[in-house]
Structures are given as structure tokens and as C-alpha cells.
């Protein structure tokens, strides 16, 4: 083995202090293999060393939460002995380097996190951020990422039912690809990762190990420089066909009584899965690396432990169940190998070709990994916006907004995703939330992902709050009871106090909203160092959420229907700071973001949901980016139904385009009943239009635009 010098330590992304700490834990210098294992376990990606103390402040509990953060995915109770299991994960750096494979393996990885817990994946989501549409790389990146997400999810046969896509120059050199998966399990068949039972066999299943992505986990924790291209060979290739077989094989084995613990091999593959399983279970582990199924010749222990080959799982079986398990995996033409056993030493011991090649205390790799309270400075608040000049034509401004990259229809993306396979999609992409039925029941899950990075940039605290509130609102808008969230916290370099300040503030805002809305965090992931040459991405705490429809026949959709009255529920718009109107029409990114009044959010949302579940409302849309008029235009286009809004005689820019929060639009056959209910509940409302039918959007005696023009 090579002698370890300062250069090698640095290459492994470890500081001198961290190296000294390794020497302290071992009581000697590590060998290369041990150094490699420490380097991935202590990387930002695996250890959460910069974020851990802040993540701990997030609310994670509710009566319906079965498993919060700490396992492969979060688990919530959805009644009748069933559970929804979900998580979101980032694959940002790999997707920038090789967009198709990076995105595809991101989808594969998050699905494994979900089915490793015993759930059949039933829906995927994706939250994407790209650079400016006219940046030379953007087109290629978008095409590759979208094809990769579709290529993987379509093949495995899990519908992709929603997501979000933003464009901003601050993502030019650091795109964000955040994938979410939701699975369904029986509560008495949930599998966890804590290993138990001294002497129990440790089993490797799935694909063989190659030299894929060695040091990917370390790469994901290092800031990009212009020579990022040179890091290319670490990209992994996904095999969705094998993933599909792996799902079926794992679920088949899970139906028997053979598994003690199971964990997917994600980032840092065999290392992180074996270390996490053993350390969570408080046991030791011995692996004989000579038995690891390898795809390439002469693979060395260092490569096996650090490989990120995809479609692999590690499990601990009950004694004597090996033959049963092997039979199942061989039927599905997957590799199966007993590669070690649990011990009572608290050490991770690796042998190779009859010799011991590593011996490390597990605590030092996992629980006692470094934790940093990095210096952070509070973001300086922006000044509120002075008055904004009105547009020459309100409808021309609307048209500008409707064709702006963030608002323009993403149909061209989601038509490349199979969003109907499994036959339970009753809310397709394009609505406020994707909806999938719980197969064979009257229930359904609503799923959404939301974050507004321009708000987070303007005020990370309010932006964090807003991301959670908007998820809650989107679930509410379809009639679902919001249950819990998962997140992907994408930020720049945490070693810069200003970035760390954004991170801390965003988490504080998220936590406040989770708390006020009874909407805990059950899983998530942190992606730091999203910056290139000192230019960080917009702070992007992407949030994904799941809600329950107990009776899926009582749900709402945004498409307006001819003959409906339209009612604004919530206050008229007043706030143009950090709005899309300001950015896309005026050309400025300025001002404070709208504040979320969480009490109001809850009051208005609970009212809407009650109306939907009482079968009083079937047409609802929440108001978000672009404000009231954009929301109305979406409803009009989705329903091919015009609207005459001229009676309200508004000519105030903020009325039409303000992005004030906690607001919805309802379409109903007779507004009177709704208005009576609103008055009783002390909810603000405004009747916007009556009995609409034309194929025009009309906002005043002189301003009219055909839906065809609007859609073009």
C-alpha cells in the first residue's frame, strides 16, 4: 500500500485535523483502504457534518409519523394498516457531468431507498433547476436530464406524476436534479436498516461491482472548478432493467420471514451500507471482500469498498435463510453472495484473500464522525420595493409571464415520462399535485414538490417557510390532508459564512412552517458545495410532500368549467417584491418576498379542504408564481373555458400579479353557497367572474385575449 502523505489526505477531501482524528481513533496511521473508507464516511454527503446540528431542529413528529429521519426513507400512516414511504434525494453533480446517466441513477437511487424499506414504489417526482435557457449548455443538460429521468422511471414502470422546473443563470454551472419516490407498504412489513444477531450472515444482492463512480461521494462534496471535466470517469451507468428485477426479488423475499435488516448501497456503496447497518445495530461486522461479486478483473479492496456501482443491496438474513433467499435472487437472475457476518466486536474488519486488510472502530466511522458548527452570518434583509410601474397592457404582461421559462407549460417534459403506468394515476402532471390511487381502495395519495428559490435568495427564512407552505397548499388544493414532507437542501459552499447563514435561516423558516402546519419532516437530504468559481446557486431548499385523500372521489382539479362562477379565496394581491412579474416583465430581481402568515394559511387551507371533502367544490387552484391572473389563465387553458373578469374593474398591477400567499381560486356552479360558507368561516373572498363560457379572457371593457393567443 502507498504511504500516506499530506497530498493523499487532501485528495481524499480530508483536512489535517480530520486525519489526526482518524489516527486518534485507530491509535495508528490508517492504510489506504481505511483512509478511503474514512474519507467517504466523513464526507459531507454521508456525514452531514456541516448540517447535522441544524437539521436536528426540524419538527419530525406527529401521531401519523411511523418513522422520521434516520432511516432510508420516512414512513407515514395512511390508515387501514398501510403506510406511505417516501424520500427525495439530489443527484446534482453527476447530472451536470453526464446528464442522462446522472439523472437516471438519481431516480434509481431514490427508488432503492424506498423499496429497501418494504414499499413498492408507486410514484416518482422530480424537482429540476437549470441555468438560463440561452446559456450554451442548458439545452443539452435539460434534454439529457429529462431523458434520463424518463429512461429510468419508464423502464422500471413507476409513474412520474409531477415535479417542478426552474431556470435561472445562477444554476448555469450547477444544475439541481432532485428526485423523489413514494412507495406503499403494509405497516407490519416495513424493513429497517439496523443489523442484529451476532453471527447472522451479511448478504450482497443485485448487480456486480465494477469500478463505477469511485469517489463519487467525495466528488459530490467538493466545489466545482473549471477542470470538473477531468472528474468525469467517476460517473456511473444505470440499469433500470436490473432495478426492476431487484424490486421484484426484494419484495418477494420480504414477503417471507427471512430478513433482519436491509439497506441499499447508495453513495459510497458497500462502505456506507455496511457501516450504517452495523453501527445502527450496535454490532460489529466482518466482510470477506474475496466473496464480493465483481464485474471487472483484479479489483482491489479499496475499489470494492468505494465503488458506486448501481442496483445493489446489502442485507442481514436470519440464520438458515440463505438458500431460500438465494433461490429468489437467482430466479430473477441477480447476483447473490454471502460476504460476511455480524460480530460482537464493534469493529469493522475486512479481509481479502485470507488477510486482514482493515480494522476500524465503527463508532469512529459513523456516530463519532466530525460535526461542525460552521460560522454563519445572518443574511442582510433586502429593502422593500418602492412602487412598481404598471404595464402598458395587463394582458400583454400576462402573455409575457405565460411564456416565461418558469411558468410556460412543462408538458414537453412530462409527456416524456410515463405518468400512467400502474393504472392508478387520477391526477396527472399539470395539476397542483399528482394523485395516485392506493390500488384497490377508495384512497389516494397526493404528491407535490415546491420551492421558490427567488424568495429564498431574497430572504432565506421567508423562503424556507414559503416552500413548506406551498407544498401544504398544493396538497390542500386537490383536497388532500397534508401528512409530511421530505426535502433536498441545495446550497453553496458551507465554509462561507454567508452561505451557511442562508442554510440556517432557511431551516429555521421551514421548521416554523412545519410546526404551524403540523407537517413534519420525515426524510431528506442535503447537497452543499453547489457553486463554481465562487458563484453559488440560489439557495434552494426543495421540498416534496405527501397528502392523503381518504375518498378519492372527493377531490378538486384546476380546470375551469363553462358556466362556473370564480371566487378568489384569500386577500386581494398587494405584494410585487421578488415576484415573477418584476423579474419577467420589469426585468428586476428585487424586493422582499411575500410573507407567509401561517395562521392565515392554515385557516384558509382548512376551509378549502373542508369544502372539497364535503363535495362542495371540485374546481380549485392555488395562487403562486405570477399571481392571480396567471392562476386564472392556467384554469382557463386547462378547461378550455374563457373568463369575463371585467366586472371587478381592477387595474392595479399588484392585484393581478402580486404573489401574496395563502390564496386559492375556486370555480363553482353557484358562488352563493360558497360565499355564505366563507362568511361563516370569516374567510376573505372576492367574486371574480360569473357563468363563464367564452373562449376569451376578458379583464376590462378594452382588454381581451383569446385563449388560443394565450396558449400559443
Amino acid at each position, binding site marked *: 500500500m502507498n504511504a500516506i502523505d499530506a497530498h493523499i489526505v487532501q485528495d481524499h477531501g480530508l483536512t489535517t485535523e480530520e486525519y489526526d482524528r482518524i489516527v486518534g481513533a485507530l491509535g495508528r496511521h490508517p492504510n489506504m483502504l481505511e483512509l478511503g473508507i474514512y474519507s467517504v464516511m466523513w464526507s459531507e454527503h454521508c456525514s452531514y457534518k456541516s448540517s447535522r446540528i441544524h437539521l436536528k431542529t426540524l419538527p419530525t413528529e406527529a401521531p401519523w409519523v411511523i418513522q422520521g429521519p434516520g432511516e432510508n426513507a420516512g414512513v407515514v400512516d395512511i390508515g387501514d394498516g398501510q403506510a406511505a414511504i417516501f424520500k427525495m434525494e439530489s443527484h446534482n453533480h453527476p447530472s451536470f457531468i453526464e446528464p442522462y446517466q446522472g439523472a437516471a441513477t438519481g431516480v434509481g437511487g431514490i427508488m432503492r431507498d424506498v423499496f429497501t424499506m418494504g414499499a413498492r414504489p408507486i410514484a416518482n417526482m422530480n424537482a429540476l433547476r437549470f441555468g438560463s435557457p440561452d446559456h450554451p449548455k442548458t439545452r443539452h443538460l435539460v434534454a439529457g436530464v429529462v431523458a434520463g429521468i424518463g429512461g429510468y422511471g*419508464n*423502464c*422500471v414502470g413507476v409513474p412520474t406524476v409531477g415535479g417542478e422546473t426552474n431556470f435561472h443563470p445562477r444554476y448555469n454551472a450547477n444544475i439541481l436534479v432532485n428526485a423523489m419516490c413514494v412507495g406503499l407498504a403494509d405497516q407490519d412489513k416495513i424493513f429497517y436498516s439496523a443489523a442484529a444477531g451476532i453471527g447472522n450472515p451479511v448478504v450482497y444482492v443485485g448487480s456486480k461491482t465494477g469500478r463505477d463512480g469511485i469517489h463519487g461521494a467525495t466528488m459530490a462534496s467538493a466545489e466545482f472548478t473549471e477542470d470538473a471535466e477531468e472528474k468525469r470517469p467517476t460517473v456511473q451507468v444505470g*440499469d433500470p432493467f436490473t432495478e426492476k428485477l431487484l424490486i421484484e426479488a426484494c419484495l418477494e423475499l420480504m414477503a417471507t420471514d427471512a430478513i433482519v435488516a436491509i439497506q441499499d448501497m447508495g453513495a459510497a456503496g458497500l462502505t456506507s451500507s455496511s457501516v450504517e447497518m452495523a453501527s445502527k445495530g450496535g454490532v460489529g461486522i466482518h466482510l470477506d471482500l474475496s466473496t464480493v461479486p465483481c464485474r471487472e478483473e483484479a479489483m482491489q479492496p479499496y475499489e470494492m469498498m468505494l465503488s458506486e456501482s448501481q442496483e445493489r443491496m446489502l442485507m442481514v438474513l436470519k440464520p438458515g435463510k440463505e438458500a431460500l433467499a438465494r433461490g429468489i435472487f437467482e430466479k430473477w437472475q441477480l447476483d447473490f453472495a454471502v460476504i460476511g457476518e455480524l460480530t460482537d466486536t464493534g469493529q469493522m474488519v475486512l479481509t481479502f484473500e485470507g488477510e486482514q486488510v482493515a480494522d476500524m472502530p465503527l463508532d469512529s466511522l459513523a456516530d463519532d464522525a466530525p460535526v461542525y458548527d460552521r460560522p454563519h452570518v445572518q443574511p442582510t434583509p433586502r429593502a422593500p420595493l418602492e412602487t412598481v410601474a404598471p404595464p402598458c397592457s395587463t394582458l400583454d404582461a400576462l402573455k409575457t409571464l405565460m411564456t416565461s421559462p418558469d411558468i410556460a407549460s412543462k408538458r414537453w417534459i412530462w409527456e416524456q415520462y410515463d*405518468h400512467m403506468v*400502474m*393504472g392508478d*394515476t387520477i391526477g396527472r402532471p399539470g395539476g397542483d399535485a399528482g394523485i395516485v390511487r392506493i390500488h384497490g381502495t377508495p384512497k389516494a395519495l397526493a404528491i407535490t414538490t415546491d420551492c421558490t428559490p427567488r424568495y429564498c435568495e431574497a430572504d432565506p427564512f421567508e423562503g424556507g417557510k414559503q416552500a413548506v407552505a406551498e407544498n401544504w397548499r398544493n396538497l390542500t388544493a386537490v383536497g388532500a390532508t397534508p401528512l409530511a414532507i421530505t426535502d433536498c437542501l441545495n446550497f453553496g459552499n458551507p465554509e462561507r459564512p454567508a452561505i451557511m447563514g442562508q442554510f440556517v435561516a432557511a431551516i429555521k423558516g421551514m421548521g416554523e412552517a412545519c410546526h404551524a402546519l403540523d407537517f413534519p419532516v420525515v426524510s431528506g437530504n442535503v447537497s452543499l458545495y453547489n457553486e463554481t468559481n465562487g458563484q453559488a446557486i440560489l439557495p434552494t431548499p426543495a421540498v416534496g410532500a405527501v397528502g392523503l385523500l381518504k375518498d378519492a372521489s372527493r377531490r378538486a382539479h384546476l380546470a375551469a368549467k363553462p358556466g362556473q362562477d370564480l371566487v378568489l379565496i384569500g386577500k386581494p394581491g398587494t405584494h410585487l417584491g421578488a415576484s415573477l412579474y418584476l423579474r419577467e416583465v420589469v426585468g428586476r430581481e428585487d424586493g422582499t418576498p411575500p410573507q407567509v402568515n401561517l395562521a392565515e394559511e392554515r385557516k384558509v387551507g382548512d376551509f378549502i379542504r373542508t369544502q372539497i371533502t364535503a363535495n362542495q367544490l371540485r374546481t380549485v387552484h392555488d395562487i403562486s408564481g405570477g399571481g392571480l391572473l396567471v392562476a386564472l389563465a392556467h384554469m382557463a387553458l386547462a378547461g378550455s373555458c374563457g373568463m369575463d373578469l371585467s366586472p371587478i374593474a381592477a387595474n392595479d398591477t399588484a392585484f393581478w400579479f402580486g404573489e401574496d400567499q395563502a390564496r386559492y381560486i375556486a370555480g363553482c356552479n353557484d358562488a352563493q353557497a360558497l360565499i355564505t360558507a366563507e362568511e361563516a368561516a370569516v374567510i376573505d373572498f372576492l367574486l371574480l367572474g360569473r357563468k363563464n363560457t367564452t373562449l376569451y379572457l376578458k379583464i376590462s371593457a378594452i382588454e381581451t385575449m383569446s385563449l388560443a393567443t394565450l396558449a400559443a
Partner: protein
Amino acid sequence: MKCAVIVFPGSNCDRDLAVALEHAAGQKPFMAWHQETALPDVDLVALPGGFSYGDYLRAGAMAAKSPIMREVINHADRGGLTLGICNGFQQLTECGLLPGALMRNRDLKFICKDVDLTVASTASPFLSALRKGGSVRYPVAHHDGNYFADADTLDRLEDEDRVAFRYAENPNGSQRDIAGILNERGNVLGMMPHPERLIADDLGGSDGAAFFAGLMGVFA
């Protein structure tokens, strides 16, 4: 009506098809694993959509060589009803039960959306409950749905009334807008669109339910 659904490694519309068949036939179809070498006595053998063998090499190519495929061909040769949807259609062309081939979509992209189809023939038990020239809506979800055959084959398909469905708006570049075809005897139907996906208004439409109900009606 007794039905069997063949399941290959990588099939992923097998459950959806089984649900639609059960809905229409009132009994669960028999699910046959690709390695089986015998089929029970059934009226309909159905090949579901998905990505058998990952669609590697050519979509449907490896499934077409599975042990069970011998039995599927025997069933079809005996005049038994045989339905291939999407990947199933690709398998039927690969194993020679239907002519032509399904190439990569014209725009090279996977396409998932509802499409309007014209019923071009009713000369088959699969189609006799439909109205010739009528319109039905089923979704497509495929990457390789671009139907190709040489001009003679296409002419013959048309002359023999064997074009089952045509796209109202061609989504994938298929020759002569072909979305589904029949064999000579009319007992084998291959189609790219997925009727099993639209079997309830909740799902966005029920033309698919009518398709399967019509098929059952023939046997009633």
C-alpha cells in the same frame, strides 16, 4: 372468457392489463411467467406493455425468444385470440406473428399521452364491437412505436382490411398512421396504444373499458 397474461422480466403493464381483463371478464386472468412451457386452455393470450429485458438490443426481441413464446405462437396458429399491447406488439412483430417492425419514434423521444384513434377495421373479434371509422381515445406510452413495413406489406395490410387503428394525429412517424394491425385471420391484434389505461372516468376516460367489454361480448 378465460384469459392469460404473459409476464416477462421487465414487463410493467402486466398488472394493469390483468385489472382491465378482470374488470371485463369477471375473473382474474392466469398470469404466465415467461419460462413456462405450457399455457392453460384459454380464449385470449395477452402480451402486456413494459420493457421486457429492458428493451435492450431491440424492443421485444429477447422476449420473442422466450420459452413461453412457442406456446403463444401455437395458440395463435390454432386461431386463438392473441393481443399484444405496446411492448406486446413489438414482441408479436419480433416473433413473426405480425409483419413489420417498430422503430424509434420520429422525434426520438418517449411519448406518453392520450391519442385519438380511428377504428380502421372491424374484421376481427377484437374490433367487431367498435364502429368502423369511429373514433376512440387510448393513451400511448412508448419510445419505439414508429411502425415500419415495406410498401408491399403496407398495401397488403390495407387491401386485406388488416389495419386495426390509425392515429388521428401521428405522434411517432408510423407509416400510414398505423397504430395497430391484425394478422391474416384477424385473431392476432398488435397495437401501440394502451386501452387498459383508460378504463374509468377517474383515470381520464373509459374507451378502454368499452374495448375489453366489446371483446368479452363476442364470447358471451
